[in-house]
């Protein structure tokens, strides 16, 4: 746990997410012994040989998966309550059920690799090292938010961790992501960019345009389709003639991955990074599921049944990512069930503390309305674009 704490402390300076727990009987925190675990389902490849089903991991990594995903899950549930309490307004798209994609991806890459996603970005932001206070403040539109309260739920960014957001318009982030990959190739950085999009966005023309250019120029771009089977209220089979999104790249190889298995995601992302650095773009389709509706204004039950949701989660398919990792931890005697319960309680407390702290942050100043529209003080012998802006006095 200490090592995990250290790792976490270096990425989130303000919040200490987990305090050390005592009374350990099982091997865990600093245990780096390698475990080889089989993924739930094998990978399916399109024009590529899929990687092996056996994933190498360590008890430490599995525990970090558990606590990270528990944190993300708790954050999203808390955001749900905050929205209903009208502290979060506008759009709020929740990621619970899909945590394994964020967490598995982080395990396979570094902060030099870029991630760009659409509006379901809260957990990706956390995964990139963002902290809870910044996240909740931004959701509530406060000054302490990661975008100073001016972005909102759909506009989380973290430049120092190569997290490029946070975008509201469906599909528009994919050309941006390919542009980031272009810059990485231009600067010879040896890094890749993961451009995430959903099954709804997969039908956007600009995706294929960007894919064509990336394939032509051999850019280290990895397009990741987080297929949760619903584009807002429309099921994938009603929106896509060919819902095999990993095959849609045609000349670009693709891999279909069980997106609710963090280890499978980690293996696929590692594989994709190696491939992209050597050969150019590749598509990953993460087969995942969201428990909430599309956003907080969507109950999520008009176009699918509650039985389906609970079926995927625990009843028939038992694909919930956190439960899966919990079973692995228990099966391999990495930690007792009580410790996992303690982690969850701890996480709950962290989230509650962060919300309390975020509520104390003030709303942005009126003058913030006009800041960061332009970059001031740029260019040659010029006056700055705001030289003649009209300043209104706000009531």
């Amino acid at each position, binding site marked *: 746990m200490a090592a995990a704490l250290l790792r976490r402390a270096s990425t989130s300076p303000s919040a200490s997410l987990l305090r050390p727990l005592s009374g350990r009987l099982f091997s865990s925190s600093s245990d780096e012994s390698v475990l080889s675990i089989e993924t739930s389902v094998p990978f399916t490849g399109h024009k590529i040989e899929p990687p092996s089903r056996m994933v190498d991991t360590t008890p430490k990594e599995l525990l970090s998966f558990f606590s990270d995903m528990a944190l993300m899950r708790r954050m999203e549930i808390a955001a749900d309550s905050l929205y209903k309490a009208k502290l979060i307004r506008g759009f709020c798209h929740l990621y619970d059920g899909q945590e394994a994609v964020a967490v598995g991806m982080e395990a396979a890459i570094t902060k030099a690799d870029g991630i760009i996603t659409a509006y379901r970005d809260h957990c990706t932001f956390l995964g990139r090292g963002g902290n809870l206070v910044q996240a909740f403040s931004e959701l509530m539109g406060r000054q302490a938010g990661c975008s100073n309260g001016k972005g909102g739920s759909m506009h989380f960014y973290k430049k120092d961790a190569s997290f490029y957001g946070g975008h509201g318009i469906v599909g528009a982030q994919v*050309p941006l992501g*390919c*542009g*980031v990959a*272009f810059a990485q190739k231009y600067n010879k950085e040896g890094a890749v960019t993961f451009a995430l999009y959903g099954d709804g966005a997969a039908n956007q023309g600009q995706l294929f*345009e960007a894919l064509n250019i990336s394939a032509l120029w051999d850019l280290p771009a990895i397009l990741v389709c987080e297929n949760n089977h619903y584009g807002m209220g429309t099921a994938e089979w009603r929106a896509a003639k060919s819902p095999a999104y990993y095959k849609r790249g045609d000349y670009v190889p693709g891999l279909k991955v069980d997106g609710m298995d963090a280890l499978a995601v980690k293996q696929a992302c590692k594989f994709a990074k190696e491939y992209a650095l050597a050969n150019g773009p590749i598509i990953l389709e993460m087969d995942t599921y969201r428990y909430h509706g599309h956003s907080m204004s969507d109950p999520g039950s008009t176009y699918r049944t509650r039985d389906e949701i609970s079926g995927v989660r625990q009843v028939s398919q038992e694909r919930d990512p956190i439960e899966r990792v919990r079973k692995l931890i228990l099966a391999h005697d990495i930690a007792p069930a009580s410790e996992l319960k303690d982690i969850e309680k701890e996480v709950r407390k962290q989230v509650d503390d962060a919300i309390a702290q975020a509520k104390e942050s003030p709303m942005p100043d009126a003058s913030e309305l006009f800041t960061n529209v332009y970059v001031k003080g740029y260019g040659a012998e010029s006056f700055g674009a705001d030289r003649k802006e009209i300043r209104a006095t706000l009531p």
Partner: protein
Amino acid sequence: MASLQMAALLSAPSTPVPSDRVRLGALRLSASSSSAARNGGALVVRSEAKVSGGGASARGLSLITHAVAEKAAAASSADSKPGHELLLFEALREGLDEEMERDPTVCVMGEDVGHYGGSYKVTKGLATKYGDLRVLDTPIAENSFTGMGIGSAMTGLRPVVEGMNMGFLLLAYNQISNNCGMLHYTSGGQFKIPIVIRGPGGVGRQLGAEHSQRLESYFQSIPGLQMVACSTPYNAKGLMKAAIRSENPVVLFEHVLLYNLKERIPDEEYVLSLEEAEMVRPGEHVTILTYSRMRYHVMQAAKTLVNKGYDPEVIDIRSLKPFDLYTIGNSIKKTHRVLIVEECMRTGGIGASLRSAIIDNFWDYLDAPILCLSSQDVPTPYAGTLENWTVVQPEQIVAAVEQLCK
């Protein structure tokens, strides 16, 4: 010996000889971008440029002595005026070339900009000089390559995205409006988008409705964007350089009919200010505000007006967003009458916004209503006569001034 001479050449302030710095650009000078600092006043290139002698001599060029000697003779024999003459598209290319040389993060993306040399020859020769990774031929996919330009700008590259015709950038409107204009704000200042989006627009010679669009009116309300319109070789080069150096996204509007304008421009390096308007002809009776091609119609009308005894002050506003209300205001305070001549449509055009801005700020100085001559609110017809009636002609400008000054 050769490299010493080269170094001396480059570090010397303006002498007639370094005008050939343009020609010498054919040698692979690798200037470190951080070293070229900017002076307060006249901009002179102080570069620690290192000549990659290997490359140049490998091509068998006897670099320094011949080039300097010959060109110096040619320059002095051609005429005694300083500077060099070139066409507007060459001025744009010169500006682009100088910036690409100075800063390795500048790259160009667009259709046919590389091997073909650009459909209006603005990027001709740059691909051979800088290679395929810096001058990129894109497929016909405006939405995505503009998006890619913006994405790479987020990381710190400085792409220059060319729309073969400004009208094609309508396909990239989402990227320009939402990502380009807004990312600096929505990320709380984390990301800068130092991109330049440029291309020819405006009504040409019977190009048809879809290829004669004026996008400045559509882009003007996008917050976070800056817009400039060039009209002469001098300001084309200066604005191109300023746009590339700017940390903000800049849309540079060129005009299809102005590419072959010839002018003598200085040899020294210069960068213009992006928000300044240009005083074309000082006067006393009326302020005529214009930009891009209409400047020339206005100047033609000005000749007639002078013969009739009027003294118009002509200002090329150049900066379409934000307006240079300082220069414009000083002019209005002097003349008290304003005529706006633009190529945009009447509805929702640059003139409409400019009129509002003038009324808001300078109402007390006006002696007459602001007249605004714009293009008709119609798709540009193909037939030549009809096309002429779509845009403002010099006779209409003369009539408007006469009406204003009654």
